[in-house]
């Protein structure tokens, strides 16, 4: 039984690394989305996909003249599922990082993100620098730029990572965390809700130039070029601004 388990594991690794190669004629594009990251992506009360990422995805597909379908996928498995061919592109607020670029390609940015700490209103913390946060318990969603930033810069703090952003917020509200580092958009939405009444933004954004792009398999250069052109087009013709204004009172491009 143990040997069988090891073999199944090895087979999975091989299957995932082999991926699905070969040129394609792009008439349909499948898009992976987390659907758990409001206001960028999530479900509405009728269980339909909504959010900034979803709207941008639809607009890009319309511009490219292809038919799109959306596939919901847990965040941790986002890139592995792309590599395994479950979908062809990730339009799910994924930041462009060097680590990710080793395994996937990214289009040009479709918005710019900032990372900001959120803390209880009665927090004693005044300094959000790594020195000021030493010994504090800090949380973030795993596999995100926030998690990476905390791991790299805030080594003297106790860093806790959560499967979803909501889990991190929940523990912040429960008092298990001294602060959460997250993207400014979702934090803004959470703070405005009833659950976020405990807390507020803490200090200035620690990262302001986090670029968000669409992840594509490395061999699909043609699809990347199509997306890049479509992004330029929707920015130029005002479609982007319409979607932007639906969710945010300021430009996030």
């Amino acid at each position, binding site marked *: 039984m*143990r040997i069988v*388990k*090891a073999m199944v*594991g*090895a087979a*999975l*690794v091989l299957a*995932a*690394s082999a991926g699905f190669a070969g040129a394609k004629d792009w008439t349909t594009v499948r898009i992976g989305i987390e659907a758990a990251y409001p206001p960028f992506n999530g479900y509405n009360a009728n269980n339909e996909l909504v959010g900034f990422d979803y709207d941008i995805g639809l607009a890009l597909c319309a511009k490219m003249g292809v038919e799109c379908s959306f596939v919901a996928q847990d965040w*941790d498995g986002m*890139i*592995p599922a792309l*590599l395994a061919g479950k979908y062809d592109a990730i339009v799910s607020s994924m930041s462009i990082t060097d*680590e*990710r670029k*080793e*395994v996937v390609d990214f289009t040009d940015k479709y918005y710019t993100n900032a990372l900001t700490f959120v803390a209880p209103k009665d927090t004693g913390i005044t300094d959000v620098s790594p020195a000021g946060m030493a010994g504090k318990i800090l*949380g973030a969603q*795993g*596999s995100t730029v926030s*998690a*990476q930033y905390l*791991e790299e810069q805030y080594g003297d703090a106790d860093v*806790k*990572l*959560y*499967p979803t952003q909501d*889990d991190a917020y*929940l*523990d912040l*509200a*429960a*008092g*298990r965390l001294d602060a959460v580092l997250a993207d400014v958009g979702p934090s803004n939405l959470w703070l405005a809700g009833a659950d976020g009444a405990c807390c507020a933004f803490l200090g200035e954004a620690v990262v302001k130039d986090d670029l968000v792009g669409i992840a594509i398999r490395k061999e699909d250069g043609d699809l990347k070029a199509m997306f890049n052109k479509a992004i330029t087009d929707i920015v130029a013709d005002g479609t982007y601004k319409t979607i932007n204004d639906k969710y945010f009172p300021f430009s996030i491009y």
Partner: protein
Amino acid sequence: MNAELFERYGLRMLDGLVVTVELVVISVTLGALLALPIALARTSPSRLLRGVSFAYVGFFRGTPMLAQLFLVYYGSGQFRGALESVGLWWLFRDAFFCCIFTFTLNTAAYQSEILRGAMASVPRGQSEAAWALGLRGAVVLFRVILPQALIVALRPLGNEVILMIKGSAVASIVTVYDIMGVADLAFARSFNLSVYLWAAVLYLVLVETLSRVWAVFERRLGAHLAVSAARS
């Protein structure tokens, strides 16, 4: 095998191994202490004790440990005020404690059933003979019934510990860096699936070590049975 990845996460993986061992050893030991009173309650003449212990065992064996951990971890977060007023919040604030608490209650339910079955397997004549000799209840239990029952219980108990070793991986969901937690972390940064193979190997080593230790236990504790079987 990626050397850079190994350098970065190899040691943390070993830390994770220590955390997994701590989780299992502490919760299985505390669970064993709880299991005896629960097993006795299950066979008690009191309807109340029987009912409560039946419900307890039914709940913890009938629901996923992941769900139980979520209930304890995020549930306790909702009752922070109440827990603070009784001075217990500092315990439930800690993810490691929440895991120990949940795992202990879970394994206690399983171990109590193993123990109950093992005690039932000891022939009735044994306790009747002990009573006839005028021994008291506690002496009958600890000197006559349990020593024989534990030999029967040993193998299923080993099974339960193995299940706990693997089941403890759910701790990674609530921010505890056990083997699985470190593997998740390393994978999130590298997207290299081989980290899960490392994790699998560590779990295999744990389980294999345990089953060897258990085989030694069985030989020791069952030595008189082996001898008498050979003689007959």
